[in-house]
C-alpha cells in the first residue's frame, strides 16, 4: 500500500515576510511543463474564486512551486491571471519558469571583438581638430585580409605614394566604437610591414578614449616604427568607449615615403575581466566563461552547474542590447550544451532563486526507462527519406582552390535496397581535416538511423537509472534521455548488444505533466536531431570570418 503522489502547490509572496500559501486543495486543472533548452517552462491551474476577493496567493510576481514530498518539481513566478465565469467565477493562473528572469533585462558586452567592420575613419570634428593641429591625413587606410598569405589580417596605414611636408605630420588614424559598451582592453600586434624601422620620429600608438575627440584617454606604448607583438592596452576607467590606432611621421619635407605600418589582428575586449584563453593571436574565451558572466548579471538566478568547455570563441560581441537568454543561446551554438533554469534540488536549500545549469550532453546515458506497454499515444516517426550512404564535402582550401572529398558509410537499410544516396555539402573556406570531420559528423547523423522524433504519454511509474521507480511527475527536460523498451523491429530485437543507441534512446526535449485528470500523466516529446553538424559549422564559420577579415 502506498499513499498517493503527494503533490503540493505553494506560492510565496515576494517582499515583506514572504508569506507562504498552500494552494493544493483549492486548484483544478494543474499542469506544468519543462523544455530543453530553457528549464521550467510554464505552469497553469484554475482557482474557483470570486474575482473581487483579495487573492494574495496568486499576486503577480509570487514565487510558485510544485512539489512532491520534499522535492521541487517545478518553480516559477506568477505572471498572468485571467478571469472568466461559467457556472462560477474562476481565475486561471499562469506562471512561467524563473528562466524568464533571463529575459527581463538586457545586456551589452564585448567579450572579444576582432571584427574589422567595427573600425573606421575618424569623426569629422576629430579630423578638423587634427588638421588644425598640423596633421595631414595623406596616408591611405585599408583593411588587409588574409587568404593564402602568412601575414595575419590587420589595419594598414599605407604611407607609400606620400611625400613628406616640412613641419607637418603625415599620418592616419583608425577608430573603433563599441556601440557604447565600455572597453577594457585593446589587444594587438604592431608590424612595420615596409620601410625603415626603429625611428623615434615615428609615432605609432594605440589609445582607448572617452569620446571621438580624445577628451580623455589611456595611451599605449609609442612603438616608434618597431615591431611589437602581443600587446595589451588596458583602460583605467569604465568611461573608455572608443579605441584608436594611429601612425604619423614628421621630417623636413620632400621625402617619398615607402612605409607600410600594420596594426595586426586588433581585438577589443570589454571590462568583464574574464581570463583570456588560447595563444595569441588566437585568443578568446570559452563558452562556459561567457555564459557564467551573463548569468551572474541576472538578479534572482544562481549558478548551480556550468560544465567547463575547451573551444575558444574568438569573436563574441553584443553591442546591441539584448536579453541575457539570447546571448546564452547564441553562445551555445558553439557547444550544444543542455541548459535551463530550475528549482532547488536539495531539501536543505532555502534559496528562492532560480538554479541555472549548463551541462555537457550525455547522449549515451539512459536516464529513464519506459516500457512500451506503459506508453500511450506513442508516436515516433523517422525521416528515412533522408538516409545517406555518402556525402561529398566541397570546400575552398588555403590556396583558394575548391576541392571535394567523399566520405562514405555502410547503411544496411540502403544497401539492402540497392540504393546509393549522396548528399552534397558545401562548407566554404576550410581545410581538408575539417572537411573530413564534417562529413563524418553528417553521416553519423544521417547515415545510420535517421533521426526519430515524436513523443508518448504515460501515467505509469517510470524508472530512473539512479533513483529507481518514480511517479511520471518527476520527468523533465533537463538534458536526460529516455529509453523505450520493446520498440525495436524484429531484426534488431534479439541482438545481444543492449548498449544505448539511437534506436531505443531518445533525448527528451519537452515534458508536460497534466494533473487535471484522475491521475497525473506526463507527455514527453523526444527528438534525436543532433546539433553536432551545426556546432562544427558554427566553429568553422567563426574561423573563416577571422582569417578572411
Amino acid at each position, binding site marked *: 500500500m502506498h*499513499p498517493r503522489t503527494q503533490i503540493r502547490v505553494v506560492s510565496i509572496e515576494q517582499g515583506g515576510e514572504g508569506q507562504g500559501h498552500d494552494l493544493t486543495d483549492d486548484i483544478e486543472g494543474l499542469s506544468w511543463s519543462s523544455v530543453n533548452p530553457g528549464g521550467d517552462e510554464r505552469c497553469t491551474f484554475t482557482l474557483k474564486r470570486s474575482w473581487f476577493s483579495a487573492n494574495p496567493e496568486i499576486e503577480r510576481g509570487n514565487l510558485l512551486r510544485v512539489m512532491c*514530498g520534499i522535492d521541487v518539481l517545478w518553480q516559477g513566478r506568477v505572471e498572468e491571471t485571467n478571469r472568466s465565469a461559467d457556472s462560477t467565477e474562476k481565475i486561471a493562473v499562469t506562471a512561467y519558469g524563473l528562466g524568464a528572469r533571463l529575459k527581463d533585462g538586457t545586456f551589452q558586452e564585448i567579450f572579444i571583438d576582432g571584427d574589422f567592420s567595427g573600425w573606421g575613419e575618424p569623426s569629422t570634428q576629430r579630423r578638423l581638430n587634427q588638421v588644425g593641429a598640423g596633421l595631414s591625413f595623406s596616408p591611405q587606410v585599408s583593411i588587409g585580409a588574409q587568404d593564402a598569405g602568412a601575414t595575419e589580417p590587420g589595419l594598414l596605414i599605407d604611407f607609400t605614394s606620400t611625400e613628406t611636408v616640412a613641419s607637418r605630420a603625415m599620418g592616419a588614424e583608425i577608430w573603433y566604437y563599441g556601440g557604447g559598451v565600455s572597453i577594457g582592453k585593446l589587444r594587438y600586434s604592431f608590424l612595420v610591414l615596409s620601410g625603415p624601422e626603429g625611428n623615434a620620429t615615428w609615432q605609432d600608438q594605440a589609445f582607448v578614449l572617452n569620446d571621438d575627440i580624445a577628451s580623455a584617454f589611456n595611451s599605449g606604448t609609442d612603438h616608434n616604427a618597431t615591431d611589437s607583438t602581443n600587446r595589451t592596452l588596458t583602460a583605467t576607467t569604465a568611461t573608455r568607449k572608443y579605441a584608436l590606432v594611429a601612425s604619423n611621421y614628421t621630417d623636413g619635407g620632400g621625402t617619398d615615403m615607402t612605409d607600410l605600418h600594420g596594426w595586426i589582428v586588433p581585438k577589443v575586449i570589454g571590462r568583464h575581466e574574464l581570463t583570456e584563453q588560447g595563444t595569441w593571436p588566437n585568443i578568446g574565451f570559452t563558452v562556459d566563461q561567457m555564459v557564467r558572466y551573463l548569468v551572474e548579471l541576472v538578479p534572482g538566478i544562481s549558478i548551480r552547474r556550468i560544465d567547463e568547455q575547451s573551444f575558444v570563441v574568438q569573436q563574441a560581441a553584443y553591442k546591441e542590447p539584448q536579453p541575457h537568454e539570447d546571448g546564452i543561446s547564441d553562445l551555445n551554438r558553439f557547444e550544444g550544451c543542455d541548459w535551463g533554469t530550475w528549482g532547488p534540488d536539495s531539501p*536543505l536549500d532555502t534559496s528562492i532563486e532560480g538554479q541555472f545549469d549548463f551541462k555537457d550532453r550525455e547522449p549515451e546515458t539512459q536516464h529513464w526507462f519506459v516500457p512500451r506497454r506503459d506508453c500511450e499515444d506513442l508516436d515516433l516517426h523517422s525521416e528515412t527519406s533522408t538516409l545517406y550512404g555518402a556525402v561529398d564535402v566541397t570546400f575552398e582550401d588555403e590556396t583558394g582552390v575548391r576541392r571535394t572529398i567523399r566520405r562514405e558509410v555502410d547503411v544496411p537499410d540502403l544497401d539492402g535496397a540497392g540504393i546509393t544516396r549522396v548528399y552534397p555539402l558545401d562548407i566554404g573556406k576550410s581545410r581538408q581535416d575539417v572537411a573530413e570531420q564534417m562529413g563524418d559528423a553528417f553521416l553519423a547523423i544521417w547515415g545510420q538511423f535517421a533521426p526519430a522524433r515524436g513523443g508518448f504519454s504515460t501515467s*505509469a511509474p517510470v524508472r530512473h537509472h539512479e533513483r529507481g521507480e518514480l511517479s511520471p511527475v518527476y520527468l523533465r527536460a533537463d538534458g536526460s534521455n529516455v529509453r523505450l523498451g520493446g520498440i525495436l523491429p524484429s531484426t534488431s530485437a534479439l541482438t545481444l548488444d543492449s548498449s544505448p543507441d539511437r534506436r531505443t534512446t531518445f533525448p527528451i526535449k519537452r515534458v508536460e505533466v497534466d494533473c487535471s485528470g484522475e491521475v497525473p500523466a506526463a507527455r514527453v516529446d523526444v527528438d534525436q536531431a543532433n546539433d553536432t553538424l551545426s556546432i562544427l559549422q558554427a566553429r568553422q564559420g567563426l574561423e573563416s570570418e577571422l582569417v578572411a577579415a
Partner: protein
Amino acid sequence: MAQVLKVGDRDLSPYVRVAHDDGLDPANPEFSEPQFSGSPALGDGQSFVGDAVNNRLMSYPLILSADSTDELYALVREINGDLVKGAQVEYRSGGASQSTFFDLERGRLEPKFEFWIDQAAKVRAMLHLWVRPYGHTGTYRTVIPSFVATGPQTLQATGILGDVFAQGLLRVDSGPTYLASPVHPHMIAFGISQSPSYVGVWRAASLTNVGASSALIGASGAVASQYLGVNASPVGIQAFAWLQFPDGDLKNYEGRQRMLVVARSRVALASGAPAISAVAGANSLHDGRRIGSVVASHSAQWQVYDVGEWSVPRASGLKHPDQSERIEFFWSSASPGQPSSIAASLIASPAFQISAIMLVPLDVAAGIHLGNNWDITGSGESSGGDVHFLFSNEGVTRKLNASTFWRDESEKLRGNGPLLPPTGSPVASGPLSVVFAMGNPKHFLGNRPVKLALSARERFTYLR
C-alpha cells in the same frame, strides 16, 4: 447499541429512517476508482497507476418532526445551517461499538413536501453529505507519548490501526536550550519507514573504518560524542568509510531515502573544497552507483550536508549486484571535474571527520523544516520557553509556534505531515520506524536534546 448520526453538535439520530429501501447509505464505496495506464494494443492488460479518490457521498433518509409545522420549518433551517465545510460527522450503526467520524465538505438537506404529512409537522427528507473519503477515529491517539534523547534518532511507532494510512501528528519541542539567541537557524527532518528494522541514523562507531590512517575519536558535540577521522594526505581521492548492511538486510531499505551527513572538513583548498562522495555497492568511485557528492567547506563546526538520494529497488528479497550490501564514502580534494592533484592546506588534524550518516526515508512521508528565526519573546505555547512544531497531515496546515509561524515561508516546509501505515484492521500493526533529526545545519550539535511525541488518527475505507 443505538444508531448514532451527528453533524457537528446536532444529533440527528432520532430522525434516521432505516427501512431496507429507504436509501440509507453511510458507507458509499463509489468514491474510489482504480486507474490503469497503457495501451491495450501494446500489451496484455494495463498497469495500475493509482486510485482516483473523490469525496464520499453519504445518504441518510430522515423523517423530521417537530411540535408544529412552523417549528418543523425552523428545524430544517437549523439543519441547513449546520451543513458547513469542516463540520464533523459521526455515524455508528446499531450493531457497532464505536463511531466512525468523517470530515464534511458540503451537505444538502432535501425535504420532500407532502401536504398531509406536513400538517402533522413531519417531513421526509434525504440528507446528502459529501465528506472526505476516509472515516477516522475522530481524535488523535497517542502512539509515542514522550521520547527524550540526544542527537538524531530512529524510533519505533507501534499499533497503527485501520486499512489506509493514518494521519500522524508529530510534535517537536525544542526546549529552552535553543534559545541562546533570537536568531537561530534550525533544521527539523523526519521520515517514516514501514520497516521496523530500518536504521536511519548511523553513528561513527557503526561505520566500517577503511581509511589507511583513520580512527574513531571522541569529541564533545559530535553525534554520540565520536567521529571517524581521516588523517591522510589531503590530496587525492580516498575511501574512508563503509556503511555496511548485513546480508539480506537491504530489503529494509527498499525505496528512496535522502542521505544527510554530519561532517566537518579541516582542509582548505586554493580553488574549491573537498568533496564527500557516496557510492552504493562499489569498489571504487567509478564502479558503483553514485549517490551523490557535496562540497564540504572547511569549518570547525559540524555541519549537515545533503549528499543526495539513495534508492534501493524493490526486489522481494533478491540481491541486486549493483547495490551490494554497503555504501562507500570517499572524500576527495578535488571538486567534480577538477583533477585530483590539487594541493590543499591542512588546517587541523584529522583532515576529514564524519560524525553520523542519516537516512531519511521518502516513500511514505518525509518532511524537512528549515528556518532562520526563532523568536519566542512573543506568545509561546507553553511556559519554559519551549518552541513547538507540529507536523500534521490534517488538511494543509502546518502548525508552528504562534510567534514564528507568520514569519515562515511556505517553501521552507518541505514535504508532508507524517502518514503512518497500518498493516490490517482490527489488529494493530507491527512497528514502523521514524527517523528524526533536529539542529542547526551549520553548527550541528550531536548532544542536543530531542523531545518528540507522536499521535495518530487512524482511518478506514468503510466503517470503523
